C-alpha cells in the first residue's frame, strides 16, 4: 500500500462483497473483518461475506456497548468495534527469541516472520489514520506487516454515539492508506474505487457495473451527512497548549476519583503502542525466551525505574496518558495521537469520556485565567 496516493473517486458499483473476499482468499490472504460474536462486533477471520455483521448496528455510550438489530442489511452500519487492527499489526504478544543451553554455551534463535499476509476488510477512516500513526511510531517490524497487508477501507456513513473524528482532525471519508475503498449504499451495494495498483488489479477481477453519477452522489451525501452527525466533540483550541499548561489542574484529581487505572482505554486505543518485554525460563533452566507484550501507562510497573514506580497515583497516570495522547505526541511524532474513534469512551468501565475531560480542562484553564 502507498500512503501518499490522492483519493480516487468511486468508479465501480459492487452488488456483493462475496467475490472480493473470495478473490482475496484465493490470493492467499488471511481475510480479517468485522463479525458478530458474544454480543459484540469483533474482528475475526472471514471466510465469506456472510460472516460480516449484516443487519447489526450498535448502541454506544460512555462505558456501555450493545448490539441492536438494524432495519436494513448493512454490513458496516456500526462504528469502531471492540478491537482495533493493532490486534494484527502490533500483536499483544510477540516472541523475540529463544535461547537454548548447549554443552559449550548457548544458541539464540530468532523466530522467522509468521509469513501471514492479511487482508483487512472494513477498515474505518479513523482506523486508517490510526494504522498510519502507529506505522510512524513503530517503524520496521510494523512496516513489514503493513507492507504485505491488503486494505479494504469503508467510508463511515453511520458514526457511533462516542465518535468525534471530525474534531480530532479526521472525518468520515477515507483518507490515504487503502488499496480499495468502499462506500456502503442502500441494498447494501458498494461504491468502490482502487487506490493502488494492487487494489486495481483485484478490483478489475470483480463482477461490477460502472458507478453512475447518481450513485456517486448518493454515497457522497451519506458520508457528508455522517460528518454532521458526530455527537461528541473536542474543543476547537490548541490541545497541545492546553495539556502542557494543565500539569497542575485540579481536574486530574477529580478524574482519578472515577478512574480505576485498569488500562482498558490504552488496550482498545488504536494508536497506543507501548510494550514491555518479559523473559521466561523453563524449570530446568535450559531454555529461556524473551517476549514482547502490550503494556500500558496505567500499569503501576510501567513507570518502574531504579527503586520504584515514578507515577504511583492514578491522577498522575491518567494525566500521563491524556497529555501524551493529545499533547506531547505532537512533540514526539509531529501529530496528535488521537483519531476520535471513541473506543476509550465506550470501553471504559467507569464511563470516563475523553472529550468531557478535555472540555473540563479547557474550562478550568479559562476560569484560572479570568
Amino acid at each position: 500500500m502507498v500512503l501518499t496516493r490522492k483519493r480516487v473517486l468511486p468508479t465501480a458499483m459492487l452488488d456483493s462483497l462475496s467475490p472480493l473476499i473470495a478473490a482475496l482468499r484465493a490470493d492467499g490472504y488471511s481475510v480479517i473483518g468485522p463479525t458478530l460474536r458474544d454480543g459484540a462486533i469483533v474482528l475475526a477471520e472471514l471466510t465469506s461475506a456472510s460472516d460480516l455483521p449484516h443487519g447489526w448496528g450498535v448502541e454506544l455510550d460512555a462505558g456501555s456497548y450493545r448490539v441492536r438489530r438494524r432495519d436494513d442489511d448493512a454490513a458496516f452500519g456500526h462504528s469502531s468495534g471492540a478491537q482495533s487492527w493493532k490486534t494484527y499489526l502490533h500483536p499483544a504478544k510477540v516472541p523475540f527469541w529463544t535461547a537454548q543451553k548447549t554443552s559449550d554455551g548457548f544458541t539464540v534463535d530468532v523466530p522467522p516472520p509468521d509469513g501471514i499476509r492479511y487482508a483487512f476488510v472494513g477498515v474505518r477512516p479513523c482506523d486508517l489514520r490510526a494504522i498510519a500513526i502507529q506505522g510512524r511510531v513503530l517503524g520496521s517490524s510494523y512496516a513489514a506487516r503493513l507492507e504485505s497487508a491488503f486494505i479494504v477501507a469503508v467510508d463511515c456513513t453511520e458514526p457511533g454515539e462516542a465518535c468525534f473524528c471530525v474534531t480530532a482532525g479526521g472525518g468520515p471519508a477515507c483518507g490515504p492508506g487503502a488499496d480499495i475503498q468502499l462506500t456502503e449504499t442502500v441494498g447494501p451495494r458498494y461504491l468502490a474505487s482502487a487506490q493502488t495498483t494492487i487494489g486495481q488489479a483485484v478490483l478489475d477481477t470483480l463482477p461490477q457495473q460502472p458507478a453512475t453519477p447518481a450513485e456517486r452522489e448518493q454515497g457522497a451525501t451519506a458520508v457528508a451527512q455522517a460528518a454532521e452527525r458526530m455527537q461528541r466533540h473536542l474543543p476547537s483550541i490548541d490541545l497541545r497548549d492546553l495539556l502542557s499548561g494543565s500539569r497542575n489542574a485540579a481536574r486530574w484529581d477529580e478524574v482519578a476519583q472515577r478512574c480505576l487505572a485498569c488500562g482498558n482505554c490504552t488496550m482498545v486505543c488504536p494508536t497506543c503502542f507501548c510494550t514491555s518485554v518479559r523473559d521466561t525460563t523453563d524449570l530446568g533452566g535450559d531454555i529461556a525466551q524473551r517476549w514482547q507484550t502490550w503494556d500500558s501507562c496505567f500499569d503501576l510497573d510501567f513507570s518502574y525505574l531504579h527503586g520504584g514506580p515514578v507515577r504511583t497515583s492514578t491522577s498522575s497516570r491518567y494525566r500521563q496518558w491524556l497529555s501524551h495522547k493529545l499533547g506531547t505526541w505532537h512533540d514526539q511524532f509531529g501529530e496528535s495521537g488521537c483519531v476520535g474513534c471513541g473506543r476509550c469512551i465506550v470501553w471504559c468501565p467507569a464511563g470516563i469520556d475523553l472529550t468531557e475531560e478535555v472540555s473540563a480542562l479547557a474550562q478550568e484553564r479559562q476560569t484560572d485565567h479570568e
Partner: protein
Amino acid sequence: MKPKLAVWKFASCDGCQLSLLDCEDELLEIAAHVQIAHFLEASSASVCGPYDISLVEGSVTTPLDVERIRQVRADSKQLITIGACATAGGIQALRNFADVDEFRSIVYARPEFIDTLAESTPIAAVVPVDYELRGCPIDRGQLLETLSALLNGRRPRGPLHSVCFECKTRGTTCVLVKGTPCLGPATQAGCGALCPAYGRGCYGCFGPATGAPAHAKKVFNLFNSGAPS
C-alpha cells in the same frame, strides 16, 4: 542434590494444592528438578525438613495453626503462600466481620469443643512470607513461573495490573461494558481472565490490583478480606 519442595495445608479446600497436581504435562519435569519431600495430597510418604521451598495453602484459624506455621517457616528457606486463603484469609475470613462465638453457637451442637481463633488471617499475618500467589484457586502458570524462577535463581515475575489486560490480550470482549457486573478492572491479573472468557464477570478472587483505588477494597471482602489495599 535436588532442592526439597514441601506443600502444607491450613484452613482451605485443597483446591490450590490440586493445581500442582493439575500440572499434568509438567509434573514429571517438576519431579525431575525438585524432590517432593512433603505433599500429603499426593503421597503419604514424607521426608523431614529443612525444605528449600514450602508452598503453603490455607489461612490460620486455630491456635494449633499458629504453632504449625511457625515450624514450617523455621524449616523453610523460601515460603510461598498459594491461594486466596493463605494470602488474604479466604472465605472463612468473613468471620472477621462478625462475632465468632455467635457463629460457633449457631453452627455446632457442642460449641465448647471448637477451638478456633476469632479471626481467619493470612499466613503473612503470623510469619514472614517470601512470595504470595493469589487466586481461588491459584493459576497453574503462575505456580510454574514461580517455581521456575526460584529454581533458576531469578525473581518471579507477576503482573501488577488489572484482569482487563488479560481480557484484551486474549481478545475477550469486555463483559462489563456489555452489562454483566465484573470486578476485573480492580482485580489483580494472573488468572488469564478465565471467567470473562466464558462470558461471566470476574468475582475478584485474585484480590485488589496494586494501585486500585482504595474504594475498590470493599468489593473484595468475599475471598480477600485480609488483603492490603
